[in-house]
């Protein structure tokens, strides 16, 4: 079983950085986004929502204190905006879209380049995280997904590198050996 306490404590310590300052009109909205692991998806690609909900179920089963929730944006550009302004860190996307978002090309140009990494690969989609996502969280998230019955794939792994925390887990590094970041 994954260490649930350490994951929750890590999230509470600021894995999801607040989008607003200390004096926010929406303090609990910020708290909500810190309290829950939000899995971004969008309405332009229905499969992202289906996968996000499957991920939420799998993650919450293996790691209930993550309190994962799907967050469905109207379009992928909104996800780029949310990730780029530290309002969201994790999203499920088709691989070409993830690459364009990372490179800030096409419709993502207004949001600039994003430092995206890979958490998991599915048939046609991938789960990405912003590079600032802590190694320990990436380790636990990938472990929770591996425990689920979601079909993982190894296709296309070179185009978007794995998050260091995921690599550490695949290399057999124990969670306790990862530095807190």
């Amino acid at each position: 079983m994954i260490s649930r306490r350490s994951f929750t404590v890590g999230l509470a310590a600021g894995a999801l950085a607040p989008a607003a300052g200390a004096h926010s009109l929406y303090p609990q909205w910020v708290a909500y986004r810190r309290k829950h692991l939000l899995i971004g998806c969008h309405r332009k690609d229905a499969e992202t929502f289906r996968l996000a909900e499957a991920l939420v179920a799998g993650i919450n089963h293996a790691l209930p204190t993550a309190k994962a929730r799907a967050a469905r944006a109207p379009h992928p550009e909104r996800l780029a905006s949310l990730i780029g302004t530290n309002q969201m860190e994790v999203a499920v996307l088709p691989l070409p879209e993830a690459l364009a978002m990372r490179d800030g090309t096409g419709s993502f140009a207004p949001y600039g380049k994003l430092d995206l990494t890979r958490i998991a690969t599915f048939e046609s989609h991938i789960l990405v995280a912003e590079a600032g996502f802590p190694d320990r969280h990436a380790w636990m998230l990938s472990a929770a997904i591996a425990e689920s019955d979601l079909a993982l794939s190894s296709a296309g792994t070179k185009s978007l590198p794995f998050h260091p925390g995921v690599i550490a887990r695949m290399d057999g590094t124990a969670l306790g050996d990862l530095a807190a970041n």
Partner: protein
Amino acid sequence: MTRTALLFGVVALAVAPAHADTTDQTWMTKVVIEKQGDHCADDPNCFNRYHPAIPPVARANPGDVIVLHARDALDSDLTLDSVAADLAAVDLNLVHPMTGPVFIEGAKRGDVLAVTLMDIVPDEYGYTVIAPGFGFLRDIFTEPYVVNWRLSRTHAESDGMPGVKIPYEAFLGSVGVLPGEEEVTAWKAREAALAAAGGVALPPQPVGALPSAVCGPDGAHKDDCLRTVPPRENGGNMDVQQMQIGTTMLFPCFIDGCGLFVGDVHYAQGDGEVGGTAIEMGAVVTLTTEIRPGQGEFVKAPAVEGGAQIRNMEPTKFYQTVGMPLKAAGEVPPSHTYLDAAELPALTNLSEDLTLAARHALIQMIEYIQREHGLTAEQAYILASVAVDLRVGQVVDVPNYVITAVLNEGVFDE
């Protein structure tokens, strides 16, 4: 066809251009400001911050009929099938998209602009949401929730609120005029002082601010563009449901031309808008204006002139809870946390406190709706936001001032 019938037909065709109907007879001088693009960011007629440097998008004379196409409060992409997951991805920096500003010819600082609301044509879709961190009971309702409404000119109904029909009582959640330079300076300072004291006041936020040339990250006044959430002396987000069609709203004019705007249209709302949102929608708004020269000396904040509108909104049957400033030991409502009073948690009765009395009345009402009408707590909170009126009972019987919550029981009629 008989010869006679053919003859009448020919005669009718001959006169049709002159007397076919009344459509071609017009007298209004209309100024129409339409939406462009999907969102405020795509629309040169839309802005979401206040500053006197925001340029007018149209000019109108007093007496002209001004038609403004307005967007919903969140500038959202919500739809009839939206779910709570859609709320988690809302960008709060986009609140509120306003249509305008309109330069009223002849108006100048020190005048009053009288705005008569002539009509509101609702979109066919509206929504009411619980947004985490927003709303009067934000400490109790912490998860996102959405009710999607089908709207017509008679009532709103929703699969998410079975057995309920909300009557059409539309008004402008936000309407007002632009502030002047000195108002921006004064209001920004007083809100900064409040924030420093721990109060809830949001400073200018250039991210997502429109128009970007004035208020955006590289805008000429990016640090002085005021947020639209709090109502101020220029009007704005007042959310006063009595400002119905037919009423006249008065605004002190702070800049030449006043800079009239509308937005955040509500299909219906209870007094209090307790959940944080009404039935939110886009709409086509029609109004006209009049200048009252020099009256700004007396009308220093918005006021309303009306007739039977208030009476017509009253329920024909109701249930009313009575709230007093009572609370549980240890409880500190979110509205009181900034006071940092050491005595507050232990007290179970506060003195002359209308906010706590409102909370007491509302919680009783939500429990009543759940118990008597079988709705969930979230549905009851949403219903209270759109069909329960918080009213002041009295402000004299110390220490227990009274707020009541009045439910329009008519919403449950088939």
